[in-house]
């Protein structure tokens, strides 16, 4: 198709303001949609991060003690009795005591060093505590080494600082501490003077928190063989037999209250399955993604409608000229091509300006709001979307223009 660009430019010069406004609108739309897409993709990536937990079958009980001031030994006896009862539930596969769980939304983390007197920490790890049932209950994949032995598990009272001599770490932590990949059997220090030797490696294991500050430590976690017998309360993590999650969640509190009534399990959110836990911890991310999605769709729709409106107006204004061109031998598809090219020229100007705006806005949010830097792929995708949107929006009015009969040339208004 032989398209003459010069006549289009000449015609556009007569509609400077309108042309400029469409280009500006496309630029603004591109700037906003790129950044919105970037935020959406970033947050959705967060949402789909794997925790390493068998989420379909695992639930967590937040068990607070009703009678405070119990000694650690008393608490430990109760915890062991509770665990026995939970493991014997018909619908339960296994249970473990814990001081926190993946995706809890924050919790215990320690700095990790290679030597006890190191002043700047090597990295940071989420700290989990549990017994020899921890890995099995969560359904973690042990990729190297072994599980804890029952006799390795120690008792930790309220605010008691105990550093076990063994630990199971996540592969991400093992690789960070020992990049050569021979972490098994090596030791590290986690804010204590005694080292912990790595006896097992699991992969993956998400941290407890999802805050932005911990992004640099993603997936870094360690498990210590400890029963956290805090006088305030404890988490019981329970894994149900496949397909029996609801039954297990119903049975568990009954079994615990049968053990002792002096406990508080919040009727509202004392027992949560992993779908709920995941939903809660990513509330913010999902919400922002939805909001950005709504804004993008509204913006694209309004921009498309605006282009349709203005192009229709221009077509209406130029019916006579179109008629003349048709009378002089222009084919329908020449007229169609004319309007599509015209829109392409305007859109191209808009997206160039828009790309600059998009990058500038992103860089500004990086410095002002601790956002991440946007990859150029988003700008590319946005440019493509807007060019297609422009062509699509122009198509209907342009088609109408192409159907203008040559007779129009002979009619006066």
């Amino acid at each position: 198709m032989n398209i003459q660009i010069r006549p289009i430019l000449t015609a556009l010069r007569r509609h400077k303001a309108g042309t400029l406004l469409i280009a500006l609108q496309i630029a603004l739309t591109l700037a906003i949609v790129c950044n919105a897409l970037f935020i959406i993709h970033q947050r959705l990536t967060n949402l789909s991060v794997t925790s390493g937990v068998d989420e379909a079958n695992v639930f967590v009980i937040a068990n607070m003690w009703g009678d405070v001031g119990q000694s650690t030994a008393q608490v430990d006896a109760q915890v062991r009795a509770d665990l026995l009862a939970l493991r014997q539930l018909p619908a339960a596969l296994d249970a473990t005591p814990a001081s926190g769980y993946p995706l809890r939304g924050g919790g215990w983390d320690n700095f990790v060093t290679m030597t006890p007197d190191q002043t700047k920490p090597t990295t940071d790890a989420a700290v989990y505590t549990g017994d020899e049932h921890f890995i099995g209950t969560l359904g973690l994949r042990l990729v190297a080494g072994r599980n804890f032995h029952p006799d390795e598990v120690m008792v930790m009272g309220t605010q008691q600082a105990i550093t076990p001599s063994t630990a199971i770490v996540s592969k991400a932590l093992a690789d960070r501490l020992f990049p050569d990949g021979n972490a098994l059997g090596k030791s590290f220090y986690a804010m204590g003077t005694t080292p912990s030797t790595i006896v097992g490696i699991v992969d993956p294991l998400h941290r407890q928190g999802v805050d932005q500050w911990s992004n640099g430590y993603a997936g870094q976690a360690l498990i210590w063989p400890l029963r956290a017998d805090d006088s305030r309360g404890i988490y019981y993590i329970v894994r149900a037999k496949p397909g029996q999650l609801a039954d297990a969640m119903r049975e568990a509190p009954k079994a615990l209250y049968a053990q002792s009534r002096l406990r508080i399990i919040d009727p509202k959110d004392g027992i949560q399955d992993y779908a709920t836990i995941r939903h809660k911890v990513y509330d913010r991310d999902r919400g922002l993604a939805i909001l950005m999605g709504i804004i993008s769709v509204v913006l694209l729709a309004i921009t498309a409608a605006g282009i349709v409106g203005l192009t229709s107006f221009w077509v209406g204004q130029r019916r006579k000229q179109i008629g003349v061109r048709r009378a002089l031998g222009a084919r329908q598809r020449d007229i169609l091509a004319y309007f599509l090219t015209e829109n392409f020229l305007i859109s191209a100007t808009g997206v160039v300006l828009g790309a600059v705006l998009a990058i500038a806005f992103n860089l500004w949010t990086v410095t002002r709001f601790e956002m991440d830097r946007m990859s150029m792929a988003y700008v590319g995708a946005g440019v493509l979307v807007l060019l297609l949107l422009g062509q699509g929006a122009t198509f209907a009015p342009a088609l109408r223009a192409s159907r203008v009969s040559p007779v129009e040339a002979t009619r006066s208004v």
Partner: protein
Amino acid sequence: MLAYYLELALRSLKRSPGLTALMVLAIGFGVAASMTTWSVFRAVSGDPIPWKSAQLFVPQIDNWGPNGRGSDGEPPNAMSYNEAITLMRDHRARLQSAMYQISPSIVPADASKHPINVSGHAVYSEFFPMLDVPFLFGSGWSAADDAQRAAVVVISSKLNQKLFGGSNSVGRTVNVEGKDYRVVGVLNDWNPQPRFFDVVNSGGFSTGVEDVFVPFQRAIAVGMPNDGNTNCNAVPAESGFVGLQHSACVWIAYMAELDDAAAVTAYKQYLDGYARDMQQSGRFGWAPNNRLRDLPSWLDNQHVVPSDTKVSLLVALGLLLACLVNTTGLLLAKFLRRSGEIGVRRALGAPRLAIYAQFLVEAGIVGLSGGLLGLLLTGVGVASVGWVLPKDIAALARVDFSLLVLTLLVAVIATMLAGLYPTFRASRVQPAWQLKSN
């Protein structure tokens, strides 16, 4: 004349219903998105205690040294027991209180009921007058109660409702963690957002209610453990809650009322003096690195307003701007299509001003309609904001009279601004040229 312009405008808008609807929709959506995100932003960035926030200060003492500082050189954002107790003992501000979060169990008198778990804070007596905490019955406790570690408690009206059916319970007893406490005061509804006295533990906003307040030293004496964050630069040497008190771990929030600039300067000097003493005694191996921020700067420093909220507002304002550009383009097309009509009016003697008035009225009508649609959508937006934002924040956003007025004003003014250039172009139409070509 205005009535005539209104009639002209309505007739013109009716002539191209599609274009009119598009403009109204654009303005409506643009305004509604901006106003919804604004209502959230307004709610979270509000001053929780506007009459006093400039007198409330949060001291920070660097008891960790250079290795414990973040990349920004900031000292810890909470206090260790040692520092908090020293500051309370020296009592250099007019009013001050150390505080920590507690989560005790309350055992109902009725033995058939399960114990319930409540949240609250262990504070000093000056906490209540310092923060102008409103009481329904009774009052806070006295300094003597602080010193004697008295078993007294201030409870929320909600807990009072639950335990005493809402009657005046001052003088009655509540079983907290297995021990009897005498109720000295019942709070009136008091749920400041953000929870400014302890933003480190509440994250700023909280859907929960503070149900109990007990004397700080009493809570320490009976070993009521800290339910908030504990941050340590090293593992405490001793175990248990007592070990935590002897450690350099930070877990206590602190607030002081300083009424004038002189008091602020004096307090800052006092903090630095304390840190210098610690340096000389060898406990701190570094120069003083303290902070003393007033409440608004403290909330800002702790990023109480989530950056997500700010980004949402900005993106929504961007949407409004794009909608306005869209409206300008459409108005331009609409107005210039009527060049012939304008030519006739001008030829018949209408001054440019009259053309201005006529088309700005038309833009105004579009703006008003867009504003009304925007009002409706803002209502829907604010009502459903809980669907996309965390509940603790969403619960704060509400539609009130000022938001309604603002929505309409923004819609009308913005649309008239958008109509300014098209109107200018319309007023420049040459009557002679139009009449000739027709």
